[in-house]
């Protein structure tokens, strides 16, 4: 047990390399196959937010981002990619839910029905957000959301642009 915990602690202290966005097949809102590597083609920073219809904090976070987005875009050019981790039970519902919220007009909506992208990004719980810079490097990530946490997220987006 001790060896196990020490090994884990050592591993997490050592892991510091900058992660990127792996290539994984998911679905877009039309049900077409979409390779996540294509997200990097535009060469602009982006927020990638993993959410699900049964996760209330996820919805609150995306709503907060949706409300603030027009103001944020006046300062920085970036995109928001909302990745639903709902499986077949909720997949159709997730698409209708996102449209019912108006997210489709401002966010890139992706649907990860067997959680392949989620696993590849090592997301264990949602909400989980990543800020990816224009070069495709993950420069910020955050698990969980409390009301007001979107301010820290936007600061990370601005910082990623300054880094550029």
């Amino acid at each position, binding site marked *: 047990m001790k*060896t196990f915990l020490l*090994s884990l602690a050592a591993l*997490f202290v050592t892991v*510091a*390399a900058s992660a990127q966005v792996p290539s994984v097949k998911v679905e877009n809102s039309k049900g077409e196959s979409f390779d996540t590597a294509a997200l990097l083609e535009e060469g602009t920073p982006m927020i990638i937010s993993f959410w699900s*219809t049964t996760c209330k904090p996820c919805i609150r976070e995306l709503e907060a981002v949706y409300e603030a987005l027009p103001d944020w875009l006046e300062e920085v050019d970036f995109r928001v990619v909302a990745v639903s981790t709902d499986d077949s039970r909720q997949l159709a519902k997730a698409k209708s839910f996102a*449209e*019912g919220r108006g997210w489709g007009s401002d966010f890139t909506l992706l649907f990860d029905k067997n*959680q392949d992208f989620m696993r590849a990004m090592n997301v264990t719980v949602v909400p989980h957000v990543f800020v990816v810079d224009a070069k495709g490097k993950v420069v910020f990530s955050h698990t969980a959301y409390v009301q*007001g946490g979107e301010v820290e997220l936007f600061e990370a987006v601005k910082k990623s642009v300054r880094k550029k």
Partner: protein
Amino acid sequence: MKKVLLATLAVAFSFVSFADEKKDWGYVSASLESNNNLYVEDVVNNFYPSEQPQLKDGNTFATNNYLKVDWYKDRLSAGMQVEGYFPSLVGFAVSQNKMTLSNLYLSWKDKSYSVTAGSFYEQFGSGLLFRSWEDRMLGLNNAMLGVRATYGWEDKIAFKAFWGIPRLGKIDDNTAMMGYTDSFFGLGLTDVQVAGADLSVSLSNLLNMETVNLDLEGSVINKHEAMAEALAAAGCKENNIGWSGRLNMEYDGFFFKGEYVDAGKQIVSVPAAMNGRKAENGNAQLVELGYNGRGLGLTVTGRRMERMNQRIYNYAGADPGYGTSVNMLSYRPAMSTQYTYMLMTLNPYSPQVGDKVIKAGEIGGQVDAFYNFRRGTRVGGKRGMKVHANFSSWHSLDEKGSVEGSELLFRDFSFDVEKQWTRKFKSTLMYCYQNYNKNHDMTGLYIGKSHVVVADMLYKWSSKLSSRLELQYLSSKDDQKDWMAGLLEVNFAPHWSVFASDMWNHGDTGLHYYNGGVSFSMSHLRVAAGYGRYRAGYICSGGVCRAIPAYTGANLSLTASF
């Protein structure tokens, strides 16, 4: 075993070290999840730690841990997952001080093709024919160990094929089951082999149809299983072939999805018969249609399932139903609303796959409608308003698969309104009516009725301080009659959150199910601690429900992702 794991960790460390040196060694991504409970005897809740099979010699502490590490270098990736149970949490399959390597893979991904050797997850269509996935809440991980290859011709044709041995995941330490071996690095493999292929053709892209999206898809699966005499006598075959055909259409927001599945021969329990089982043909039909656009999201779903048991392996002993609940090779979820408010989740629906002779399965459907009244409209007001309604109804199929002897299994209706009143105040009001079967496996005909109302209010005191209050009431003349519940959450952005809640069954038992906790999250890390009394219930997913025993105690969970 330990040597193997330590060696694997050493390899992971070396990759990480290389990455640190900023050489072109790719990068490492990792995650850790640790769930820990300290149990306390609670006579009122009828919970005694000493009676739990995994808590021995006065031990009251249990912990489930998962470490996953992936390494990426251009088109190459490799990874592993290690699980540790010291011992496993109460309610999960019993495991004593055990660490296992659950996943290990090497993968090459090019522009048009990919090859994976080792552990992988896969899903064909909706998963009704085949799905391998992980659900840690359910204690399920039926990853395949084998080889998978995919090929895509532009965006016109996608093909994938695999061969592998399904992992059964966690089962009892003391349970000996046919088809299960724990000898291969603790991977928990069965001696069943599965091969499958899936083809998806985009007719719209082939024919350059610009406004319509039209896909034709098909899959085939072969499960090879050693035949014990009892299984062969029941009509099972060594090689069981299943297939599915699918059609997907999308035009200007309108969509249609249709899927037909033939699952081949499936085992059905026949209690009165000599050998207790017989094999019948399994099939399912799924239809989804609706419209998404202009602030409206509308989905109509219908599904019929007959003899869709689809176990990874079939037990040859006296009781054909014997085995673990995670013994499944496909995904048959409940197609009803997955509620999140406490009192709405007391009686979840568990879909009927038709594994008992008396009922061949289920038939039913649901309708979901979401609408956004935009800002500036008469109803939406200054800040808009969101409404959602759902209706679902599910009935059993009789022994012959017909609706003639059909009985109501579950029905619900819910309606919710979300309104941002001011910059600081937001509310959600929800009503739900449920007809539920008292027995989660729907074997009984006792149907209960309940009405639940919820008020969920969020107030932002400042940019960093907010509070949320949930008030809930359940009214029922059945089962444990009336309940009430409340939750108060105070958030200090961006890191801290504290909450206290109570669920009170004042209609019958008088029991309080109290709970309180605090969570801290920063960057990659989240830590949450709490103490409470938990009611017995079910976690349901994919057509199975895991019984959660009542317990009282403290919990600490940690998740980290890099």
